[in-house]
């Protein structure tokens, strides 16, 4: 188990983060909903809280529609939160002025999923990698180039690659360029949004290994988001499970996988295909389909599909409690 940061404050602290999107309708429906004051809203992220320390990886798993991608964007203020507080290295970043926000942005970077669309095909590698530096106001060309060269070397590419265009590289190499771009401003925190989901299995291991090495070398904090539970388990110290815009369970990686308390987590873990036919397990029951995020179920959002649901589950939403050491779950009938 890795040594967690021993500072008093976490690198990233998120409290009650909410992000709602208005549902796009036709012009007339917009007017009618304004008059009736019932604007429909997509509850993408509905009150999420977590902490991330230095040199620590928090994995975020969930299926489509759970809100993890929106959460990634909101934490970095790429989209304005509807409510909540985000504290980075002790500062409330939503209260920062533009100039200060730019400085903070340098310390919080992101790596995207698609190695093909995350790099501008008309820009050379050196321009892609130096863009965050230029955007934050760096002027001295020599320093900028030097930092770009260092970033490329850190990800296993060579400085002669700086002049090339993205299409001259393979998928794995392009993902490395994306990582170099995230590293060039010497960040403290990197949000990784499905960084290996578009890569082949044999390349995935290379990139994951690289990410781990970089974390050790630069003491980075990772928010690792993926729908691939196997990969998240491998990379994370702690894992948070999201469902319909809420975190239903957070615990150490081993506990999430081997001792899940929430019924959804249990169902998810039993559904993950393991590369070993002897481990074919019985599925933990999960009924029906994911409901629409415009009209989430009342009370516990999982109750319509949960085999243990009772009356109270439909009435009020369960809050996160801590039945085990560092193990949080939001459920009225957790698995003991």
């Amino acid at each position, binding site marked *: 188990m890795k040594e967690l940061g021993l500072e008093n404050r976490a690198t990233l602290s998120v409290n009650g983060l909410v992000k709602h999107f208005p549902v796009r309708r036709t012009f007339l429906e917009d007017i009618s909903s304004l008059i009736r004051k019932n604007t429909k809203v997509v509850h993408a992220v509905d009150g999420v809280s977590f902490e991330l320390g230095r040199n620590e990886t928090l994995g975020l798993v969930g299926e489509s529609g759970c809100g993890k991608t929106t959460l990634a964007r909101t934490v970095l203020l790429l989209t304005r939160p509807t409510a909540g507080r985000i504290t980075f290295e002790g500062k409330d970043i939503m209260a920062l002025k533009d100039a200060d*926000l730019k400085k903070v942005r340098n310390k919080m970077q992101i790596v995207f999923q*698609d190695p093909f669309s995350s790099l*501008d*095909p*008309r820009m050379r590698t050196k321009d892609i990698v130096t863009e*965050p530096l230029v*955007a*934050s106001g760096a002027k001295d060309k020599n320093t900028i180039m030097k930092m770009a060269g260092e970033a490329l070397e850190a990800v296993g590419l060579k400085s002669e690659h700086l002049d090339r*265009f993205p299409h001259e590289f393979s998928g794995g190499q392009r993902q490395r360029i994306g990582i170099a771009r995230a590293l060039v401003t010497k960040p403290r925190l990197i949000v990784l949004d499905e960084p290996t989901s578009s890569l082949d299995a044999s390349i995935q291991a290379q990139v994951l290994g690289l990410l781990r090495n970089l974390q050790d070398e630069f003491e980075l904090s990772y928010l690792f988001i993926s729908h691939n539970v196997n990969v998240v388990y491998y990379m994370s110290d702690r894992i948070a499970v999201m469902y319909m815009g809420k975190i239903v369970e957070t615990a150490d990686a081993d506990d999430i996988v081997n001792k899940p308390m929430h019924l959804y987590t249990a169902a998810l873990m039993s559904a993950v295909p393991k590369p070993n036919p002897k481990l074919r397990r019985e599925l933990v029951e999960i009924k029906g389909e994911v409901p629409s995020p415009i009209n989430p179920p009342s009370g516990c959002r999982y109750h319509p599909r949960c085999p243990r649901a009772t009356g109270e589950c439909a009435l009020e939403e369960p809050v996160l409690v801590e039945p085990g050491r560092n193990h949080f779950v939001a459920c009225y009938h957790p698995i003991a």
Partner: protein
Amino acid sequence: MALAAVLAGDKITPYNPYQIVLPRRLQPPSWTHPFGTDQLGRDVFSRVIIGAPIDLAIALIVVAASIAIGVSAGSIGGYCGGRADEALMRITDVFLAFPMVMLALAVSMALGPGIFQVIEALIVVWWPVYARTARAETIAVRENQYIEAARASGLSNLAIIRNHVVPNIISPLLVYGTLDLGFVILYASVLSYLGLGAQPPQPEWGKMVFDGQIFLRSAWWIPIIPGLIILIVVIGFSLFGDALRDALDPRMRK
């Protein structure tokens, strides 16, 4: 080829294109006058060559300006969405509601005759198409993750449009533009034909066709040759446009 003619234009006219030599009028193509002479004895060849820079200039200016205006409006509208986009769409709707020729005519008549007026009229007519195309391309480009990456780096919206959106949408627009060069010449010719553009004695190709049409039977070279030249130039531009597109795509570079 047309470019060569433009550049050399002034120097290789063997005859003064404006010089009226009445005894020599209506001579068919020959060695001394490769394209013949027109009804006022002027050498057609020289007039065609001198007309080249006029038409080309019109075409280039109109297309360049239309692209510039169209791309700016279209990319901003497409990227920002919301009200700016709606406004752009409505404005272009108004312009596109009219058939282009009619609109060109109307604006041209309002502005009065003359080459510069023709240029202005055609720009007014032409830019909405580019704006629409630019907007559509921008919307496609906007979804790419490199745009998100640029925002994550802290780039302002304007910088993103300038550095990322425009370079990625410009290629099809330039191809479209080179094709249009030919069409602008056609439109300019039509306007001149109708008396709104070039004024005598300026040798503009369209005007030459108009002036020469009464001689279609007797001295066919007067209207036909400028017309053929227009055709060749239009085709030439479209081939050029294809080559340009291939050259511009960094993916095609080895």
